[in-house]
C-alpha cells in the first residue's frame, strides 16, 4: 500500500542537476533578504552618500542642486565660520552646538547608566511588586519626545510648575529653567534622564538576572558585605550590558531633536541648548541653507560612526552578530 501510493505521487529525482545554480542558498534566500535590503540600501545608505555629495555643493533650495562644482567650502565654514559664497550673511561655526552635544551626551549617558544600575540592583533585591515597579520605571520610555517635552515644560514653568511650587514652598523665589541660558541644557538633560534611565535599568536588570546565583552566594559565603559584593563581583560582570546600553543611550542623545523642537516650540532653542541635531535641521529647513545642513549632518553621521563602528566590530569579534 505504502509502496504503490508513493510511487504514484513521487516528485523526486527529475532534472535536479540543471537547477544547481538556482539552488545556491544565497540565491534562494534572496527573495527574503533582497527586498528589505534594497529598501535599506536605497533609503539609508543611498541617502547617506547623497547627503555627503550634497554637503559639497552650494545648494540653497533654489532649483536643483548643482553637482558640477564640488568643494569643501561648507566644511571650512563649519569649522571656522565666515561668510560663504552662497550667502550674504556670516555663518557661525558648529563648535558651540558640537560642544553642547558632547556635554549633553556625556551627562545624560553617565547619569542614566548610574541611576539605571542603582535601580536595577534595588529591583533585583527580591522585592514584592517587582513587575509594577519595573513597569513604572520604564513607562516614560513609551512616550514621545514631544509629549515628554510638554510635561517637563509644565513641570519647569516658573508660575505653575510643580518644581517651582516646591522651591517656593521652601521659601525661595521662582527659578526660570527653560529659558535660562545657565540652566537650560541641564533642564533638558534632566528631562531626558527621566525618560531613559528606565531603559538602562531594564538592560542592567536583564544582565543581573544572567549572572548565576552561585556568584552571589559565593561572595556571601566569603563574607563580603552587600556593597562590596556588588562592587567587586557583580558590577565587573556587567561590562557588556554597560556597553550596549551606552551605545543606545548616546544614540538617543544624538536624536534629541524632537525633544528640543517641542520644548522650544520651533527650531530655536537658543545658543546654550543648541545641539548639532537642532542646528542641522534649522540650517536646512528654517534657513534654507540645505548644503550647509548636509555638512552638519555629515559631522553627526561621523560622530555616530565613531560610536557604532567599534561596537559592531566588537560584537563581530565575539561572534554575536
Amino acid at each position, binding site marked *: 500500500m505504502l509502496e504503490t501510493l508513493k510511487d504514484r505521487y513521487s516528485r523526486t529525482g527529475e532534472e535536479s542537476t540543471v537547477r544547481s545554480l538556482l539552488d545556491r*542558498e544565497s540565491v534562494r534566500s534572496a527573495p*527574503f533578504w533582497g527586498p528589505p535590503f534594497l*529598501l535599506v540600501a536605497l533609503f539609508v545608505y*543611498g541617502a547617506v552618500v547623497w547627503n555627503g555629495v550634497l554637503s559639497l555643493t552650494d545648494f540653497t533650495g533654489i532649483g536643483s542642486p548643482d553637482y558640477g562644482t564640488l568643494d569643501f567650502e561648507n566644511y571650512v565654514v563649519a569649522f571656522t565660520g565666515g561668510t560663504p559664497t552662497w550667502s550674504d550673511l556670516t555663518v557661525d561655526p558648529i563648535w558651540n552646538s558640537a560642544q553642547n552635544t558632547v556635554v549633553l551626551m556625556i551627562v545624560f549617558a553617565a547619569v542614566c547608566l548610574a541611576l539605571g544600575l542603582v535601580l536595577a540592583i534595588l529591583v533585583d533585591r527580591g522585592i514584592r511588586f517587582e513587575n509594577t515597579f519595573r513597569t513604572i520605571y520604564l513607562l516614560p520610555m513609551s512616550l514621545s519626545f514631544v509629549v515628554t517635552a510638554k510635561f517637563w515644560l509644565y513641570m519647569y*514653568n516658573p508660575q505653575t510648575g510643580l518644581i517651582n511650587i516646591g522651591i517656593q514652598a521652601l521659601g525661595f523665589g521662582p527659578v526660570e529653567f527653560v529659558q535660562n541660558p545657565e540652566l537650560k541644557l541641564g533642564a533638558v538633560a534632566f528631562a531626558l534622564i527621566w525618560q531613559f534611565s528606565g531603559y538602562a535599568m531594564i538592560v542592567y536588570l536583564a544582565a543581573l538576572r544572567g549572572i548565576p546565583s552561585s556568584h552571589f552566594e559565593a561572595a556571601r559565603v566569603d563574607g563580603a558585605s552587600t556593597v562590596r559584593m556588588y562592587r567587586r563581583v557583580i558590577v565587573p560582570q556587567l561590562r557588556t550590558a554597560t556597553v550596549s546600553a551606552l551605545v543606545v543611550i548616546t544614540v538617543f542623545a544624538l536624536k534629541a531633536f524632537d525633544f528640543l*523642537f517641542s520644548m522650544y516650540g520651533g527650531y530655536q532653542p537658543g545658543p546654550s541648548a543648541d545641539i548639532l541635531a537642532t542646528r542641522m535641521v534649522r540650517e536646512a529647513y528654517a534657513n534654507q541653507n540645505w548644503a550647509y545642513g548636509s555638512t552638519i549632518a555629515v559631522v*553627526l553621521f561621523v560622530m555616530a560612526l565613531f560610536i557604532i563602528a567599534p561596537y559592531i566590530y566588537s560584537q563581530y569579534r565575539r561572534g554575536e*552578530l
Partner: protein
Amino acid sequence: MSDAFAGGSDRRDRLKRVALYAVLVAMAGFYLIPIETGLMTAITSPETYTGQTPFLPPLEPLVSGTGSFSLAPWANAFDGLARGLANSFILVVPATVLSGLLGSMAAYGLTNVEWRGQIAVYVLFIAGIFIPYQAVLVPLTQFWYNVVPLQAAFGPLAAAVPLVQEYHWKLVALIVTHTAYGIPICTLLFRAHYKKLSDEMIEAARLDGASVSTIYRRIVLPLSVPMFAVVFIYQFTQIWNDLLFALTIVQFGDASVVTQELVGIGVSQSGTNFPLRMAAALLAALPTLVVYVLFGDKFAKGVTA
C-alpha cells in the same frame, strides 16, 4: 543572648527592607509625577485653573484653589488633534506591519539559510539602526519632493478612489521612509529569535521536501508569532512617537501627524492654556500608553534586544 543578637539583626534587616521600599516608591513617584500632574491639570476646567496645586485633582468647591472638574480640555484637545490622530493611524499601521514583515523576511534570509557573505549584509542592516536621521533628511526631502512623482500620481487617484485625498501622498512617502528605517531594528529582533530555532528542525523540513519559502511560510512564520507581537509593539511606539521625519517629509499642513499638531497646541496670545495642552499631550500619548500598559513586558523585551 543569642536571641537578643538575632533580634537586633532582624530589626536591622527590617529597617533595611523599609528603606529599600521607601527608595523604590520615591523613584516610582519621580517617574509618575509629571504624568500625574499632567493628568490632574487636564481634567481641570481652564476657567477655574489657578496653577497653585497642579498635582491635586480638581476638587473645587470642596478644596479651594484646585479648580473644578471638567472634560472640556479633552474635547478641545480632540478637536485640535483629530486630523493629526487620523493621519498618524494611517501612517503607523501600514508602516509597522510592513517593517515587521520585511524585517522578519530579512532575518530569515540572513539566519536560517546558510550562505557566505550574510554577515556582511547583516552588518549593514545593524549599522542602519544607529544612523542619525539627520544624516539623510536633506536627500529624503529632495527625493520625495523633486525626484519621485508621487504627488502627481495621487491627483488622479484621489479623484477616482473615495477616501483617498491628494495630500495622502505625503503619508505614503512617510510610510515608505519609516518602513525602510524600521527594517534594521526589526531584523535584529527577529534574528535573535531565529538563531534560537533548532537548526535540525529546519534541516528536517528541508529533507521533508520543503523549499526555502515553504519553510518560512509553514515553519518559521508560525513560530514567530510571539516575536511579531514584540516587534509590532516596538515599531508602533517608535513610529507613533516620531516627529523629525514627519516634520521634514510631511511638513505642516493637511497631512500633519499627531506629534506635529501637539507641538503648537495650547498656546495663544493670551498665554498658555495648560489644561488643554496637558489633555492634548496625554491624548497624543494615549495609544502608546495603552499598548504599554497592556503589553509592558513585550515592550521591555523589544527595547532590551
